[in-house]
């Protein structure tokens, strides 16, 4: 862990930029959150643009009886001819009548609803009373003016935290925070059991009525890097953070588990015994994708806040050279463990001016560009290999068993370029 010597006082160089941002808004989080919380419904209060965004992002999933929709604000709502509160109540009531299986209804704020100052928090309380607390009704904002892409999950989870039951003591409970694929959660549960950590909860839980308790006996650890508001909300409930790098890659996952085990006072020799097999397996599996990635230069555009842990993984475990690591927002406290592991000369960029960043990308001539779908094909046409970044949010990438899959996501575009004769 030689790179750990970088002191937090001397962080890597950062370009801070403002300008056009080529990013999703927080509403997009609904697309994976509604798969995660199986009895929740997400009702966006917004415009036709919001509905259009959701259907563009959700693709074909929109027809599998999805549990999200948009209440589109119309001209008559704005002209004051229709009382917005009454309209919202009418839409929500009709929705719940159609879907009585829903146990948790999220009212999700958008740019239009925020600009006209529609109070969704009050609406949620009003509706919850009307429904007799079944379903529960919560509000959060996924607006573009307030949130970037994965920050929508942060806003959703931080709205959940005040509603969680108080955790009984005195036994210390572990709370893993951030939506993970079921298969990853199950792997993590098995490893926690093997380590001897008795009580482990996950936030969000798979069902609304099974959300974990929280309190001063809770030690929480983030499984995703973009959960700053949720972390603050948990600390307000007395929970204490376990600082750890993100569980990406063999090294990242090992350090994550080691940090947790240390917080629970587990004998390092035992931890080593439990982790050595999956670490060896993950390291071995990484060999093939690493062979394709080592020595190649990568440029990451800002998207999800996963960029810094991903860059750490690509540099340290795949031997890639970082040209620029963009992130929409940098929470220096939560990101400290990952930042400490980045190569000391890594160029970070927080925020975005997409035209200037494209200029820098072209000048850097990277072998691989990690970017959104709006930029990917245009950059391919300019001769760059790209990896579209949204897949990193939708695929299971955390944990030991997924380390090689994660590397393969980056290796595949390079392999394809080598393969094609067109």
């Amino acid at each position: 862990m030689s790179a750990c010597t970088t002191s937090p006082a001397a962080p890597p160089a950062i370009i801070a930029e403002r300008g056009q941002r080529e990013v999703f808004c927080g509403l997009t989080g609904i697309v994976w959150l509604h798969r995660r919380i199986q009895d929740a419904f997400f009702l966006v209060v917004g415009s036709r643009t919001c509905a259009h965004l959701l259907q563009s992002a959700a693709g074909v999933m929109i027809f599998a009886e999805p549990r999200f929709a948009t209440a589109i604000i119309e001209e008559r709502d704005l002209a004051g001819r229709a009382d917005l509160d009454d309209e919202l109540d009418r839409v929500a009531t009709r929705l719940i009548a159609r879907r009585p299986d829903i146990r948790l209804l999220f009212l999700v704020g958008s740019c239009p609803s925020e600009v006209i100052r529609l109070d969704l928090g009050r609406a949620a309380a009003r509706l919850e009373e009307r429904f007799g607390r079944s379903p529960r009704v919560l509000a959060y904002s996924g607006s573009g003016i307030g949130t970037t892409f994965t920050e929508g999950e942060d806003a959703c989870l931080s709205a959940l935290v005040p509603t969680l039951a108080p955790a009984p003591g005195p036994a210390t409970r572990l709370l893993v925070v951030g939506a993970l694929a079921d298969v990853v959660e199950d792997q993590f549960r098995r490893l926690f059991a093997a380590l001897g950590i008795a009580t482990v909860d996950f936030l969000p839980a798979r069902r609304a009525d099974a959300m974990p308790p929280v309190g001063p006996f809770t030690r929480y650890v983030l499984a995703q890097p973009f959960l700053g508001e949720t972390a603050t909300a948990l600390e307000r409930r007395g929970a204490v953070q376990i600082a750890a790098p993100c569980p990406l890659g063999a090294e990242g996952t090992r350090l994550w588990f080691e940090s947790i085990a240390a917080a629970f006072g587990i004998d390092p020799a035992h931890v080593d015994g439990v982790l050595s097999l999956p670490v060896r397996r993950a390291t071995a599996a990484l060999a093939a994708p690493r062979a394709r990635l080592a020595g190649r230069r990568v440029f990451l555009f800002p998207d999800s806040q996963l960029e810094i842990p991903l860059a750490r993984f690509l540099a340290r475990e795949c031997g890639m050279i970082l040209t620029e690591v963009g992130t929409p927002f940098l929470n220096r406290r939560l990101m400290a463990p990952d930042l400490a592991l980045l190569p000391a000369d890594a160029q970070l960029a927080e925020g975005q001016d997409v035209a200037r960043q494209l200029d820098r990308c072209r000048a850097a001539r990277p072998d691989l560009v990690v970017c959104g779908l709006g930029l990917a094909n245009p950059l391919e046409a300019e001769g760059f290999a790209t990896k579209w970044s949204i897949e990193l949010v939708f695929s299971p990438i955390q944990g030991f068993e997924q380390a090689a899959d994660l590397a393969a996501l980056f290796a595949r575009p390079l392999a394809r370029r080598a393969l094609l004769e067109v």
Partner: protein
Amino acid sequence: MQLTLWSYEGPPHIGAMRIATAMHGVHYVLHAPQGDTYADLLFTMIERRDRRPPVSYTTFQARDLGGDTAELFRTAVRDAYDRFRPEAMIVGASCTAELIQDDPGGLAAGLGLPIPVIPVELPAYQRKENWGAAETFYQLVRTATAGQAPPDRAAQPFCVNILGPTALGFRHRDDVRDIAALLARLGIAVNVIAPLGASFADLARLPAAHANLVLYPETAGTAAGYLARRFGQKTISTVPIGLGATRDFVAEIAGLAQITPPPGLAEESRLGWYSRSVDSTYLTGKRVFIFGDATHAIALARVATAEIGFSLVGLGTYSREFAAPVRAAAQSYGIEALISDDYLAVEAAIAAAQPELVLGTQMERHIAKRLGIPCAVISAPAHVQDFPARHSPFAGFEGANVLFDTLIHPLMMGLEEHLLGMFRDDFEFNDTAAPSHLGPHATTPPEPASAAPAPAGATAGALADTLASAPVGRDDASAPVWRDEASAPVWRDEASAPVWRDDAEAELRKIPFFVRGKARRNTEIFARERGLNPITIETIYDAKAHFSA
């Protein structure tokens, strides 16, 4: 408020983007919050464009709302001009910026740029995508032709403009190519094709043509109306989609141009003969439901009834602006039109009409799939597969050929249907076997118990033989991915097959079904090679690591 899950059209600024992206040298500066750039990927992914749309966004955030959003907009306009040096710019607001009431037109005018800067007012809470496209194109045409006097066309050879094709238009690329080729066969010159492929300067040349061919009234109707009023140009309003409509189109344009079309032109299309050939007899009276934009819905209704011989049981559109012509068309078929942008209403209408074929948009494709009805996509909104690589017009005589194939392929062909009748009780040909385009999941697999014992056993045995003797490589692409892996026997020698522990079996179930079979086989090979029995969760992941190394 309207509760919406799926919307047929985007907001009006998406329509403006479709115009800007279709053209050269026109840049769009959109006052919009962070996140609205999602629209870029419609063009880069669905239409697979190789460059970014010519659109700059202010992408303001909450912290900008204090009062400097106007300055943000001015900066965006200035930066866009400096970087892209367009011939002309359009400026406007998306739905949220409409609420904060900065004035894009006034702000941009204040910058004194040396190019036309055209404000487009798109009421986002009233109007939708197609309206936005039509309005934007109209504003561009109006500005480009401002101050021109109606030209004296009498001495010039007859020529036309082709108006309406845009970016993200359903088959627009190929329709234009075929119609331009058809006009060339008629000896009629094309003056300007717009907006697709046109520059701003090209728009200034529009008045020189004698007539405007309005290929898609949804996007070009407003501009064509203006050109007719302002410059006295004729409007050719027959949309050449379908064999009969293309014949009528040729007649209309030949009349205007005072030419005689070459004989046998319509015979270049195979639709007529294919439709008369005996294999098509079974198509007679098949019940069809049609929904889409007004242009395609009306055109396809004529093709389906008069040219294929279907019976029309439903006709509708999501374009409220074009409700009247669709109502009139429906009335001429003795049915009532469905005018709705609520896909649940469309679903209900389809379920009630019980058609044998649905022609519609991407949404109707999904509705039909759910209802188990064959379907073809004939209108936007469409997904990436309906922006094909191959030449695939809907307009003109080649378009009629494409339409025949498009409307017929979802149905079972005549001979197939005949066989189905003959072998009704056969286990492979039964009433519940859905058309192949619906995928194997739509087909109810024959119950093993109901199949005749001897042949079924023989089939299963042959399958086992094949699987057991097939070389199973690491990258075996021939794995029967669609088969339920539980039913696929992997080992002939049951004794040597490793046993799966329950938790390992449960873990395997978490792998997506379409690769599960491969994962099972690889794990068993791995286990057998190492003498591991039973298979545990660890074995699965050891095998996974082994095969990915």
